[in-house]
């Protein structure tokens, strides 16, 4: 084998603490190495040209680049050597930056380590074989999970781009959180007025198939060819017949059902349409409250429905859909405020959450936009907002910022002053976060134009005093204790991951962080991709974010899908596991261990059972190879033999050194 080694300085990133030139000189002595050199920026155009040239001049058949993380540039250099006529898998990167120059200052020790890393990479390439990707067909349909503003945007962009979209939403209507909001910062335009038309577009788009009141049952397959089973939950109303006239709601005798859309500040009927602008505008029965279900008799809605749409016998239905890509846009949840004992949340009726307050402010909410105190229905004259209720609080194991609360508090404070001109508004805050366009000005307006009093400090306790509440806390700017008597307390409760986010992640085989938010593939460079190819993220499911950011991600995820689908066939990575059937003992431990269900049982003509890797499903993670007791399953280009060769190379270096 004729191997070339190219050592990068990365400016001073590497050469600052590693003698790159010496690394190249040492590399010349390694077995198989016929050419070695160092260069200022190997990834630059001249740097790549040098590699191409050397391949020709020195008749190389394997290349090692000692530079940064393969995550960054492995593909860059693969393409380089392919242009030079080599098989692109005859390549290996030695990471002498993240693994070496950046982590120590001792130049001699670093140089030594870099030499060893290169030595190992050379030993590995010497055992490389030519690999060739195979190609498979793509099903150009896309599944979007979650129809909040991010999911809707993604669905619309995909559909406008000509793709068939299946949009699955847990609730009976699309819209997500934004459909609950009154106005939106920083322009204070009516939320449903800007969302409504988008909802209609989604509902009417001929390329979008809506599955509301539905959840993902399971997902199998791989990029380009997923099979998704969708559970369409029983609504007990035949939506084919229901026109959304609402007669049933008027007559339903069970009027104390929990109103999810209004966050429990009002009740609804057991059969209901969640809000007037709902899409689809269809009724559902909540069996927890419906008398037909709880008492076994009622049937009022069935009698009044002019179209005979009511069906108490309805059952959940599982529908299978075939898609080629998936966009996850399941949004966020809100911290159960009862976790915030010190604020008396859940105990005192006049301590409410921001989203509940949003419903009080909303003209289509249960109070028609009149802000009232839940305890006695009177108009509050003083309202206290508390930011970071459960966010940025390491003691609650939630050190992160919920991103949009500072801004919506300012919005709600302004709206309060608008609705009740003689009111006083206080905001207890840790610090205000307003980095986007127009945001800082918006908070200033709240303070300067609307006279909202911002008190910097944490609230330690809230307790009732007569009909009012007392908020006690520190003013850290003045260094004093403050006590404010108030009629209403609004908590900006922390944004959490969506309910059951982890379960969905397991089905999708994507990773999530310790709080349940989904992990992007790279925090800067691949913000809407996941590490499972074909699965993309949009909106607050990846981390709390406001509407503009969520919409932006919806479009971004759609553009990723459109570019993925711009090809008719996809290439499958050949660096996957492969079973040597001769060695396999058929124990199928590999199948148990594979996190992607990529291994199936296969019967050979002689009746022997062996493991078999499904090429397109395998992600090349290598877990199976570590569990296979007989060494029968091997990861291509990272085989046991290659690992042994790398260790051998290290030991060889050690032997040479110790023998002087």
């Amino acid at each position: 084998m004729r191997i070339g080694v190219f050592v990068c300085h990365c400016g001073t990133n590497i050469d600052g603490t590693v003698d790159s030139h010496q690394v190249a000189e040492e590399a010349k002595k390694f077995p198989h190495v016929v050419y070695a050199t160092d260069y200022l920026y190997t990834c630059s155009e001249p740097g790549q040209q040098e590699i191409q040239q050397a391949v020709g001049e020195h008749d190389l058949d394997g290349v090692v680049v000692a530079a940064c993380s393969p995550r960054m540039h492995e593909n860059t250099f693969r393409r380089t050597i392919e242009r030079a006529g080599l098989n692109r898998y005859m390549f290996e990167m030695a990471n002498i930056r993240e693994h070496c120059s950046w982590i120590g200052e001792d130049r001699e020790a670093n140089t030594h380590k870099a030499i060893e890393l290169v030595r190992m990479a050379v030993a590995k390439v010497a055992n490389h074989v030519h690999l060739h990707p195979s190609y498979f067909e793509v099903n150009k349909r896309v599944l979007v999970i979650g129809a909040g503003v991010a999911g809707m945007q993604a669905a619309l962009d995909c559909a406008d781009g000509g793709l068939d979209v299946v949009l699955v939403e847990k609730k009976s209507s699309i819209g997500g959180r934004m459909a609950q909001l009154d106005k939106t910062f920083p322009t204070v335009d009516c939320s449903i007025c800007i969302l409504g038309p988008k909802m209609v577009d989604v509902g009417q788009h001929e390329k979008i198939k809506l599955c509301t009141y539905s959840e993902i049952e399971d997902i199998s397959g791989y990029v380009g060819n997923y099979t998704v089973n969708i559970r369409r939950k029983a609504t007990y109303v035949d939506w084919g017949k229901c026109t959304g006239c609402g007669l049933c709601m008027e007559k339903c005798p069970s009027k104390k059902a929990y109103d999810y859309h209004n966050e429990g500040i009002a009740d609804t009927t057991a059969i209901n349409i969640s809000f007037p602008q709902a899409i689809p505008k269809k009724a559902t029965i909540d069996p927890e409250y419906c008398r037909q279900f709880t008492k076994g008799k009622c049937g009022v809605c069935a009698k009044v429905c002019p179209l005979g749409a009511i069906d108490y016998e309805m059952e959940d239905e599982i529908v299978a859909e075939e898609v080629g890509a998936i966009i996850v846009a399941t949004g966020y949840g809100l911290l159960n405020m009862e976790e915030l004992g010190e604020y008396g949340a859940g105990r005192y009726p006049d301590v409410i959450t921001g989203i509940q307050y949003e419903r009080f402010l909303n003209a289509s909410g249960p109070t028609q936009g009149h802000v009232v105190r839940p305890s006695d229905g009177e108009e509050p004259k003083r309202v206290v907002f508390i930011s970071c209720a459960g966010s940025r609080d390491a003691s609650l194991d939630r050190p992160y910022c919920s991103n949009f609360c500072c801004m919506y508090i300012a919005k709600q404070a302004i709206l309060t002053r608008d609705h009740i001109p003689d009111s006083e508004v206080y905001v207890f805050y840790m610090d205000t976060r307003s980095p986007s366009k127009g945001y800082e000005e918006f908070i200033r307006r709240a303070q300067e134009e609307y006279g909202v009093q911002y008190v910097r400090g944490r609230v330690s306790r809230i307790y009732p005093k007569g009909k009012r509440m007392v908020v006690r806390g520190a003013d850290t700017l003045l260094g004093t204790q403050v006590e404010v008597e108030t009629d209403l307390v609004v908590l900006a409760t922390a944004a959490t991951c969506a309910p059951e986010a982890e379960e969905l992640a397991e089905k999708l085989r994507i990773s999530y962080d310790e709080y349940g938010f989904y992990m992007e593939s790279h925090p800067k460079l691949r913000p809407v991709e996941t590490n499972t190819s074909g699965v993309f993220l949009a909106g607050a499911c990846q981390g709390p974010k406001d509407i503009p950011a969520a919409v932006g991600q919806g479009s971004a995820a759609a553009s990723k899908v459109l570019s993925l689908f711009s090809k008719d066939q996809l290439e499958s990575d050949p660096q996957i596991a492969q079973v040597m059937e001769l060695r396999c003992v058929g124990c199928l431990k590999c199948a148990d261990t594979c996190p992607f269900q990529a291994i199936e049982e296969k019967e050979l003509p002689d009746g022997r059972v062996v493991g078999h890797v499904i090429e397109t499903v395998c992600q090349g993670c290598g877990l199976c190879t570590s569990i296979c007791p007989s060494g029968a399953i091997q990861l291509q280009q990272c085989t046991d033999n290659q690992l042994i060769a790398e260790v051998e190379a290290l030991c060889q270096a050690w032997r040479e050194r110790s023998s002087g």
Partner: protein
Amino acid sequence: MAILDKLKDGVQRELEGLEFVIGWEQGYDPLHASPLFIRTPGDIDRLIWNPLCVHNLASYLPSLKGRRVGILLKGCDSRSVIQLLQEGLIKREEIVIFGIPCRGVVDLSKIKSRIDTSQMRAVSLMDDAVVIEIPQGREEIPLDDVLATKCLSCQYPTPLIYDHLAGEVLPPQRPTEVLYKEVEVIEELDVQDRLAHWERELDRCIRCYACRNACPLCVCQDYCAAESRNPRWLSQRAGVSEKVMWHIMHALHLAGRCTDCGECERACPMDIPIQRIRRKINKEIKELFGYEAGVNPEDTPPLYTFKVEEPTIQEREW
């Protein structure tokens, strides 16, 4: 009815539906038992049951997958069966289990280290002693002195899985603390001494692979990675490094699976205390995953699953 009679009775009744039943018979000398394959009612008379019935017969089962057989199991042996079931290596409906509540079996090497048995004439087994007649006279050894080490800390004297139980359920009677005693002694050595200890012990290994062949869970057998040239983990070189490597391989392939049955160590012709390595790993697995192999057929061995986060490992507490 004595245990042996109950066993014979049970085998008699089940034999017709089975290809054979595996038990023990008297071996080539008074101190050895041998595995017995009962194919006809006439074979039943040869069946024995006593503290010399050391073999874990479950080792035969993986190779018998697909055939209907019966098997006699002690408490410890039953854990091998459970482990094999968990791993899908055998099928429950294909085997009939005759369970035996067991008070312990002897470790022949412990006897041999006390007396020269090469010219022994007879052996009789009392409740609490082994009596061996040798030319010099009659040697009576207290049973507890020659019981297998695993028996001295046995927590599962009654099989955990069976179709027929010969006798009453026997509650555990041995202390648990002694289980990891010898492991702890080695843990206390510093790294150099520990390496020296194992190099000394393992240098005796002749790589006959008897330990592997005896292990009920070593399913690869002839396909063992130790003998493979591709991948080539081990060479045929006779140095201690290759021997140590073999034992690392063996032990790691049993991590989270080994039920501490002791067959490996019993089979070793060089008297190498390899069960200690298994115990050390079993101890780690217990501490890490709260898992004990071969106890519950519904469990999955911790290393045979993939979880994004292990519930028992606090990865993020730094």
